[in-house]
């Protein structure tokens, strides 16, 4: 198979092709490395590539396969990940200047599980500094650029993951989502991503931002790939006490169940306030596709979501400030102005207000499930309500304009983090300007399978996820 044909495969398809010996692990790795090096100068998606290690591991994987030793469901699939998943003794920059030379203290559980499944990591990807930014700007490593239009933002904080998957330079990547950092790049870059239920995937060995809201999840070309990766990385972990002990469902097998009869909610309030008409039309067309597949679309009333966003912002800024307190005191000049400003802000949050924001969370989830998930199985909503801005338009340092821009960008994703519910994001179509538009499907806590199943059904009957940007 030619490199271009290999790169058009999803991770699931590539894994199958390797198992069936139609593609070698080395050929897949060479194709991924060549594409990554070809697109990086234009997209600035890479922080470090480990070509020799990647190729050596691919040779070993081919030898294993030749003697009948299949490591797991991702045997030989090349991947690069957001540079915040630690490997013991190896630098994880976390997109920062501060951690540019510090060897990581441990290996992330998510990476260990992908290694065991046979995936081969060949590099680490650009990201927002300390995962604290939703646009894809990075003032230390350079701003990440969108594969569909390099003048436009990728979304963040998993910026390099989003744009390199769109450019077919990696078959999948780990991201993280504290306020929208998986769903936003999936939306802006036209790919798929899943923010799992809070506690579903271990955070051990992943850079912390906000322990109350952080989630670890995959981005990939298809929802099927996301289901496969989630099945591999999810599950109890003694290294992360917040990790849920319940058994991990077979998310891939669950994809095969039809969605006829599934009740999909369309929010009457909040999510479509001031929504760009073209985005609203694309979302409406995607609902029509779900109807065609046999799902029922139900209009549902939303609770008052505004206070949750304020509460979530308090939690994120206060917890992030606690993690960064020592460096704010000793190395303030090593932060970009935007990230330093947001962290310093967290130092001013009163303890009682922070605790109230935590106390409110249980009640909010209870009320939301009673009001919404008693009537529907999934909530369908836009990820972002405005057209993809340029990097220049959103290149703000600090100040009131920054606060407004950041709040607007995460307005539709942050509620999912505060609720802690699973949310799958996938491409629903393109604007007339050729930019992708995503939808998000939110489900009850621990019903990640329902959101994945609906997303997969949509992709089986449409071809938006097959469209790729020009790479030259």
């Amino acid at each position, binding site marked *: 198979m030619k490199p271009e044909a290999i790169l058009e495969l999803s991770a699931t398809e590539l894994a199958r092709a390797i198992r069936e010996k139609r593609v070698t692990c080395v050929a897949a790795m060479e194709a991924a490395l060549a594409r990554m090096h070809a697109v990086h100068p234009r997209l600035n998606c890479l922080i470090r590539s480990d070509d020799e290690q990647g190729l050596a591991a691919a040779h070993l994987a081919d030898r294993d396969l030749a003697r009948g030793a299949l490591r797991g469901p991702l045997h030989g699939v090349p991947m690069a990940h957001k540079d915040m998943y630690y490997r013991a003794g190896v630098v994880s920059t976390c997109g920062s200047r501060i951690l540019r030379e510090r060897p990581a203290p441990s290996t992330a559980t998510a990476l260990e599980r992908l290694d065991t499944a046979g995936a081969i990591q060949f590099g680490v990807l650009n990201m927002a500094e300390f995962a604290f930014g939703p646009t894809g700007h990075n003032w230390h490593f350079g701003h990440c650029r969108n594969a569909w239009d390099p003048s436009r933002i990728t979304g963040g904080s998993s910026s390099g993951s989003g744009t390199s998957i769109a450019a077919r330079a990696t078959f999948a990547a780990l991201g993280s989502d504290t306020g929208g950092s998986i769903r936003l790049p999936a939306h802006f870059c036209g790919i798929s991503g899943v923010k799992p239920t809070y506690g579903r995937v271990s955070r051990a060995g992943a850079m912390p931002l906000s322990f109350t809201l952080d989630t670890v999840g995959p981005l990939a070309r298809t929802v099927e790939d996301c289901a496969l990766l989630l099945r591999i990385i999810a599950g109890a972990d003694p290294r992360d006490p917040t990790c849920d002990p319940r058994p991990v469902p077979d998310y891939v097998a669950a994809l095969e169940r039809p969605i006829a009869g599934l009740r999909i909610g369309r929010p009457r309030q909040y999510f479509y306030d001031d929504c760009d008409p073209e985005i609203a039309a694309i979302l409406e067309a995607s609902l029509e596709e779900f109807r065609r597949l046999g799902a029922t679309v139900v209009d549902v009333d939303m609770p008052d979501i505004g206070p949750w966003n304020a509460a979530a912002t*308090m939690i994120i800024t206060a917890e992030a400030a606690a993690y960064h307190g020592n460096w704010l005191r000793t190395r303030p000049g090593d932060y970009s102005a935007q990230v330093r400003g947001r962290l310093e802000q967290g130092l001013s949050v009163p303890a009682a207000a922070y605790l109230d924001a935590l106390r409110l969370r249980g009640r909010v989830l209870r009320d939301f499930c009673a009001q919404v998930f008693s009537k529907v199985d999934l909530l369908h909503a836009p990820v972002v309500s405005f057209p993809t801005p340029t990097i220049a338009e959103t290149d703000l340092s600090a100040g009131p304009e920054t606060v407004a821009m950041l709040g607007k960008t995460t307005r539709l994703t942050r509620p999912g983090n505060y609720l802690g519910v699973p949310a799958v994001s996938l491409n629903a179509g393109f604007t007339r300007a050729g930019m992708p538009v995503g939808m998000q499907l939110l489900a009850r806590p621990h*019903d990640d399978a329902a959101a994945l199943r609906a997303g997969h059904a949509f992709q089986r009957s449409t071809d938006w996820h097959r469209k790729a940007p020009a790479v030259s």
Partner: protein
Amino acid sequence: MDLEITSDSILRMLAAQGVACDATRAQGYATALAQMLKGAAPGTAQLAFEEEPAGYLAEQRRNAP
């Protein structure tokens, strides 16, 4: 709720935590903090006396399918 948080109080609070800050930034933090507190107030006003932070995990388990 009409909240007024001064940049001076923010400057002192950050200084007490060992973080140097200028007046312009402190003014921005004061405004943003007031907005956050005001924004969350309608939610926290409804909290029952006994509501605990750990209540979230119980609700998560209770609402799982």
